[in-house]
């Protein structure tokens, strides 16, 4: 190993360290703001390290936790149920498509593929869910639209047809196993990597979704955590006006000088919302990276 490569390696490592910092600093900033004192923020702006440390934002946030808790519940329910149903639906559609011997399979493939190319647009799509299915303000409308993505059907189909030897299926059939048994006892266990990939993506899609809450939910209750964060970003009052936290603080403070920590409260909401993802991230990112490469290389 010569000197040249050593310096170039140091440079490369330096670049990546810097870039990694760039990825983390914004999160750190939000985190730090949420732990800052509101008056110091108003006077001097956001800092990477709190000038005056304060837990007030969290204090206020936890005063009325009900909507946050409720939205957490919605998000978790939607994510879990949606992911399970979604992976099932995707696998059910992908497996027959992977069977070379199935008549009309190209028709079915085209049927799903075409949806990647053309769509009716927002307006009719919205009307189908609201008028025809009457799902407005229902938790199911947060689940159904994201159930199946054509892309993952194609990825899964490719995996099934390329990674599961036809000979295994053939011999199972000769042994008298039915289609369902073959699918559940042979195909699925052999396909765990691709199932996990689809499940991870699906989890991410559901957890990060705010759009469906935005257009389908009007009662301000059945909203996902992300949408709650969105509303809080636009209007800190969304958290406080419903719960009268503001007045509670003012009465606790004695006079009418109200000290609602608007800016820090906003960021505290962001921390509470993003916390689980960041905390869980170190544990599942390995699988995710693995899954991504399964999808990409084989797909």
């Amino acid at each position, binding site marked *: 190993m010569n000197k040249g490569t050593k310096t170039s390696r140091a440079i490369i490592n330096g670049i990546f360290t810097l870039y990694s910092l760039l990825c983390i600093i914004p999160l750190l900033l939000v985190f730090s703001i949420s732990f800052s004192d509101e008056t110091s923020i108003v006077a001097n702006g956001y800092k990477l390290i709190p000038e005056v440390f304060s837990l007030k934002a969290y204090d206020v946030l936890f005063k009325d936790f009900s909507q946050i808790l409720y939205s957490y519940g919605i998000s978790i329910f939607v994510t879990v149920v949606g992911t399970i149903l979604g992976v099932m639906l995707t696998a059910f559609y992908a497996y027959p498509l992977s069977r070379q011997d199935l008549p009309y399979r190209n028709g079915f493939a085209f049927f799903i593929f075409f949806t990647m190319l053309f769509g009716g647009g927002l307006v009719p799509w919205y009307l189908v869910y609201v008028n025809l299915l009457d799902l407005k303000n229902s938790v199911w409308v947060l689940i159904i639209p994201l159930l199946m993505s054509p892309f993952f059907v194609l990825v899964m189909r490719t995996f099934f047809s390329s990674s599961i030897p036809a000979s295994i299926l053939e011999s199972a059939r000769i042994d008298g196993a039915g289609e369902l048994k073959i699918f559940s006892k042979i195909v699925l266990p052999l396909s765990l990597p691709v199932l996990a990939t689809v499940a991870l993506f699906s989890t991410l899609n559901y957890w990060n979704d705010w759009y469906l809450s935005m257009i389908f939910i*009007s009662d301000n209750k059945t909203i996902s955590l992300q949408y709650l964060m969105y509303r809080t970003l636009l*209007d800190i009052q969304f958290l406080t006006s419903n719960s009268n936290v503001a007045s509670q603080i003012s009465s606790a403070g004695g006079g009418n000088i109200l000290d609602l920590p608007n800016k820090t409260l906003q960021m505290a909401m962001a921390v509470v919302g993003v916390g689980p993802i960041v905390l869980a991230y170190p544990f599942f990112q390995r699988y995710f990276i693995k899954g991504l490469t399964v999808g990409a290389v084989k797909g």
Partner: protein
Amino acid sequence: MIRLKRSLPLLAAVVLMFSMVLSGCGSSSNNEKNASEKNTTKVQNATKEEPKEEPKEEPKGDPYEVTLYYPGTPQKDVALVEAEANKYLLEKINATIKISAIDFGQWDNKLNLMISSGEKSDIIFTAAWQNYTVNVAKGAFLPINDLLESNGQDILKNLDPAFLDGSKIEGKNYGVPTNKELAATRGVLVRQDLLDKYKLDKSTVKTWADLEPLLKVIKENEPGVTPFYMSNSNGNGLLENLDWDYLGDASVPGVIKKVGTETKVMNELDTPEFKATAELARKWYKAGYINSDAATSNVFPKEQAKTGKVFMWTDGMKPGKDKEEEASVGFPLTQIELTQPTITTGDTSGAMLAISRSSEKPEVAMQVINLLHSDKFFNNLVNFGIEGKHYVLKDGADNVISIPADADANNRTYNPGAQWELGNQFLNYLWDNEDPNKWDKFKEFNSKGIKSPALGFSFNSEPVKNEIAAVNNVNKQFKPALTAGAVDPTEMISKYQDKLKSAGIDKIIAEKQKQLDAFLAAK
């Protein structure tokens, strides 16, 4: 191709299924439509052709749930109030009520969604500044003249005819105006406690520009408090407080001067008033008097004021406005009026309850509106909650209320503060901080109002619907930033003007002029 052939049967099957689903959906919406048509024709028949034959009410059928949507903060105890109201309504008109308040910031979106999806709804708040004429042009609301005759007799009896005349579109009414002050002025609500703290004198303020020294003091001494709060597109910026008669719908361009006799419809961007005010807003913004997120914030000033971080904001004024708002804002307020009281079509239709096209029983909806206008108990129940729980009547008084002693004064569970939206204000109780002569002052105020030359004229936007949509898109891009003072007006106004021209503003103004001239000629 071979592949395609093999999948033909499948495709054929799919097409067949489509047509089945589609025809299914088509016919079901057909039915709905027929049903609603039947409903309305029934009412119309009943009243128009043979007034004798009452609509065949199924008197003891299932009670009908009337949904009421208005912009405002959702209230915690709304279910309790509903339960109380239902007891009363079931007995009176065999109906129940579902009250839905939607935050102001969300109102436009949610209302559009509700209307376009044809979701069942009955009573919807609307106003000249809330796309009233646009929604009427789209057919979102039912014409209510016949319904008023059949089920809204008390409204006709109590309401100053100027309200109903003023809010007509092409001779028809589409909303029942709130019975409240008829004249309108604009001005600001100011935190009294901060005025006192810095010994500021509000009597020195005669024009918008006179507010500046007050704002300066607050800016310098109260970090964290916004001296002059405004939010995006809620009509609370300086530019939205010019002395215009918008001729029925403030969301449609083309204005005339409220005061005077001039009836030439103008593009407000051409006026010196617009320019001067935009520059004032710019100055204030740069000085930090106006909140920096004014162009993007959706938070209604009143909501923001509840946090205690706002010194002053604009609003429509009337006698006792400050005390009325104080109850829901939670801080002592005082008002400064900055324009003279005038009466325009927009003021007569400044707050209305309309009946939605999707209502299944419009006649019951009208009965509920009628009760809001005539039934003191019901009106105050919806506006103030349950007696003994959300308020108590003052000893000896039949009209003055206060917060119950055992209730947490700072944690009000039902206090919508939306009396001006719902029914008849002259029926409302008064909080104990309000002027007991408020209603007399209202009447006096109404009589002082200067009538706009175009009073009674309401623009029919149907012929230029698309241009209005295009203009509104342009407005969204320019108006909030200009109003907030976040951009330099000198270059921005001409850019704005160019875009408006290409969106067809001239056509709208010409159409407005044509309709106005026809109206004036007929008068």
